């Protein structure tokens, strides 16, 4: 399984979807890190994520850390309630930069 990536207005948008668990989180990690290696601004769209476990969250944390180390932008957009509840539990909702949508991010300018 792989996850689609769309280039939109200078951003690479990684579209995670469905249930993210140990079975497909390595794919999520790969897609996120590959996007960060190609683009300076990466957003992960979680609007279609129905379930995420700690291995999926770990993929997001790896992206966050890679971006911070390499002075890149990394954020989450459209976080579903299922994903947000796990991020809140891990108190990562205070760590990640989260926007309701790419449009909201664009309103913030560069």
């Amino acid at each position, binding site marked *: 399984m792989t996850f689609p990536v769309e280039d939109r207005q200078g951003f690479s948008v990684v579209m995670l979807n469905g*249930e993210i668990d140990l079975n497909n989180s390595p794919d999520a990690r790969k897609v996120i890190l590959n996007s960060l290696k190609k683009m300076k601004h990466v957003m992960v769209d979680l609007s279609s994520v129905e379930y995420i476990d700690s291995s999926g*969250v770990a993929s997001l*944390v790896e992206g966050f850390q890679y971006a911070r180390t390499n002075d890149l932008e990394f954020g989450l957009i459209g976080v579903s309630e299922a994903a947000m509840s*796990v991020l809140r*539990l891990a108190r990562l909702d205070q760590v990640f930069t989260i926007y309701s949508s790419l449009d909201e991010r664009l309103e913030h300018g560069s």
Partner: protein
Amino acid sequence: MEGGEHLVTISFCSRASRLRLLRSVMRDAADLAGLDVPQTEAMVLAVNEACMNIIQHAYGMDADGKIDVSVLQEQDALVVRVRDYADTVDVEQVRSRELDDIRPGGLGVYLINSLMDECGFLEPPDDGGNVFQMKLFTREQGEGNDISG
């Protein structure tokens, strides 16, 4: 299992691809037990995390291991026992990381502790392996710890 009603036991090999099946069975068991949606999702995530730990750490991603998950409904709680047949774990080594320590791994144990009311390893079986038990007290809707924090 002594006391309470045995709802289901599922046995599966230690492949990550089986976790989805596990979650489906756990959701049905929670529904049978009358848990509300937040408690169901809390229980499903906790059991998923426990089995993921077994796949990753106890069996070291070896897909030939066996995992048994049993669900028991007691009068005031749902009890889940997760059994593996790997080497007996050093319980002292199983701990969660500090949340301020932002790194990819180590969240699973924290999530289990946060989501379930009681959890811990039972006495190791005579024939080896480990049994990890989690308990979620059943409450009136709107009460208690749930996944929505």
